[in-house]
């Protein structure tokens, strides 16, 4: 099974640059900024609270993961906040945090060729909700023009280019639902690896919205109280919001400016179940992990941690755990579900998962799976219950599964200059 992936492993003649993650920005229910996020992951802090962003009257329960009401003007400096929907405010703030964290100025980025790709599930779903209310009560002709202009999904990415004044950038939003953050990271990774661009700002952003909550609630996937990945008593996910944006660049570029490097992006895999609109398919999920490991030239036995999709639904966790065991067998490392702490932040989720993986590598710990009581015997994983453990994490895998069978798996590794050279052979 191992090594049989259907596609050639990569062309020998291609000069490939190493790609490193040198800056990160985070907005989440468990912290604003990468330092606070890291501390919360280490502490196993759970960010659940009542949803107040939209009227939840009539739902039996409505807990979720909302970003605290903070003044984003510290990071959104050039664009007026009311010109941006909530998800765009988040993406811009996280992008500004990422470049600040990377110690690089917008001026300096302006001189380089770049790529901006932000993943999302709902885009400006909160604005669409409000437009739906206008449509219902007043008619579509009453929709505010400025409101309508905020809605196109690309805005969560173009707003970053506008805020930072970047012109030589390819800008797109990748709305591949709950795996979108990894898709965006993968796209930027390829563009930097081949030398097509010098840097990429990639990640994911989503804001809570009624449409999303009502949909998940209706199909029975929302937990009344907490998200418990891999637990025998798990009863669903909690919707969340937030953003994770990463600055990635070539190793040469990072070293030349003396940058602090969180981790190296080693590779990724993408595939599609082509099976069911909402249910994941075990063999296809396993194959996506194999594609990622092959792309990264990493053997399963070398992986020290898996940040699972771990949404806490009955079906996802058992399918994902089986797929992991199919690929890893006896060499399976700890498998954690950070959605227990952050909620399911939709398009941002795998971006936050990749950042969490990079932090685990950088700081030498494995974040816990919070809210954990008894592991489901059908989910054969060591999920690091409730307390983080100190660990030498050299290589981490970050899984993402989405509606539509859109899978995406990213492999990150500790950046080790001594291994510098032509690839990882």
């Amino acid at each position, binding site marked *: 099974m191992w090594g049989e992936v*259907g*596609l*050639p492993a990569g062309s020998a003649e*291609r000069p490939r640059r190493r790609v490193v993650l040198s800056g990160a920005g985070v907005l989440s229910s468990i912290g604003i900024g990468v330092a606070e996020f890291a501390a919360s992951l280490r502490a196993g802090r759970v960010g659940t609270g009542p949803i107040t962003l939209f009227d939840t009257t*009539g*739902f039996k329960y409505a807990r979720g993961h909302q970003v605290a009401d903070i003044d984003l003007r510290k990071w959104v400096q050039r664009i007026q906040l009311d010109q941006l929907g909530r998800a765009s405010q988040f993406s811009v703030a996280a992008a500004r945090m990422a470049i600040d964290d990377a110690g690089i100025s917008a001026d300096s980025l302006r001189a380089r*060729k770049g790529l901006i790709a932000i993943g*999302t599930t709902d*885009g400006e*779903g909160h604005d*669409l909700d409000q437009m*739906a*209310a206008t*449509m*219902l009560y007043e008619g*579509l002709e009453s929709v505010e023009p400025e409101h*309508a*202009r905020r*809605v*196109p*999904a*690309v805005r969560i990415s*173009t707003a970053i*280019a*506008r805020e930072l*004044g*970047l*012109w*030589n*950038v*390819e*800008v*797109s*939003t*990748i*709305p*591949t*639902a709950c795996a979108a953050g990894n898709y965006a990271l993968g*796209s930027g990774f*390829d563009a930097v690896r*081949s030398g*097509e661009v010098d840097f990429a700002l990639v990640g994911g952003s989503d804001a809570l919205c*009624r*449409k*999303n909550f*009502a*949909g998940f*609630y*209706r199909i029975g996937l929302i937990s009344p109280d907490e998200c418990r990945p891999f637990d025998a008593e798990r009863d669903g996910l909690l919707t969340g919001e937030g953003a994770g944006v990463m600055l990635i660049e070539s190793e040469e570029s990072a070293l030349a400016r003396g940058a602090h490097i969180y981790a190296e992006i080693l590779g990724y895999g*993408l595939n*599609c179940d*082509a099976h069911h*609109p909402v249910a994941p398919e075990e063999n*296809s999920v396993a*194959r996506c992990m194999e594609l990622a490991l092959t792309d990264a030239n990493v053997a399963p036995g070398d992986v020290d941690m898996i940040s699972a999709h771990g949404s806490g639904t009955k079906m996802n966790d058992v399918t994902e755990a089986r797929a992991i065991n199919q690929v890893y067998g006896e060499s399976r490392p700890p498998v954690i579900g950070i959605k227990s702490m952050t909620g399911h932040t939709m398009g941002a989720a795998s971006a936050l998962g990749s950042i969490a993986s990079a932090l685990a590598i950088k700081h030498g710990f494995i974040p816990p799976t919070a809210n954990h009581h008894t592991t489901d015997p059908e989910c054969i994983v060591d999920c690091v219950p409730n307390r983080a453990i100190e660990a030498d994490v050299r290589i981490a895998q970050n899984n993402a599964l*989405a*509606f*539509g*069978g*859109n899978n995406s798996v990213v492999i990150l590794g500790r950046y080790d200059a001594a291994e510098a050279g032509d690839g990882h052979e």
Partner: protein
Amino acid sequence: MSDATRSTQRTFIYDWSAVSPFGIGRAALSEGLRARRKAIADQCDDGAPVGLRRVPDFDVQQVLGAAGTRYLARESAMAIAAARELIEAPRPGVTMAAGRGTSMVLGTTTGTPQGYMDFTKASLEGARPHHVPAALAPNMAMNRAASASAIWYGLQGPNSTIAGGRAAGLLALSYGRRLLDHQRADQVLCGAVEENAPARSWMEYHRSRGQVTTLGEGCVLLLLEGGDPSGRQRAPLAEILALDCRFDAVGNDPVGTLEACVEGALSTAGATPKHVWAAVPSGIAGEAGDDETKLFDRLFGTAVVSRVPVASLTGDTSAASSMFAIAGMLSAAEGHREAEGRLGVVTSIDPDGSVACGVLRFLEGSWTP
């Protein structure tokens, strides 16, 4: 130095398909454009004051059959119908293999805003807020059109949706080419889709500040492959020579940004405007569109610019506009031997600031029967 992105391998277009306001299929679009016929425009009751050119008689269940289509959104059905032509009725000699090596990359503006708003509306007006139609839940994800196509045809390669407003087509092309370059797929069905509905009409009306007059809809897919085309049963239609995507960061000079973008793309292609056989501007409404037309006339001359009118006939297809332009060029080059070896230029301008330019070279396959 050129800023256009360089591809390390070559990317070819072997086939294309379309669902357009002229009907379903390549032939319908080709015939409509060749005759320079304007597709029929209607207005919808609660839509913006713009004409809508819809795909005629596009009833989802009639087009795709009754099985499993009851809850399929219009945009998903259009994407599946476009994929069907590439897979079930390709050009003679072209083979499409479903499975692990086949990817789908689909550009969009915002999926189906009408569908999302109707879902929220059901939550707001139902007896309970969760009284939303469960069967429509899968349609709430913006990747639904691409993933529904993958399910329909067993496309297990990367399945990616690219939101880019009016630049979505060229951004999807850039993404799709990157997948081939990095050996993440053997074949890519690469295109864009847009559906007409009242919500979209208002959104585009406001985005264009009341300038847009006619909206079109549909889906165009290109079949992309890398690798050496020699020895293939069928010659490719065209090669993608350059793609240049930028952003008007200042916010008031999209056409100035576009001019640099076109220069960059032509430079990457190793070409000058005199090599261009057909040039199709973005078709954006308003001042930017007028300025773009002037730029095109100046760079390429009116004969080259007027060779393939697209947006004026189909209506503004937003996310799909640059894909319709490419389909229009490929269609126009058919039967024109003098186009072989010459270039096609397509551009995009989005009201949010994205601009893009693609340069392709027509190859033998575009005129051989």
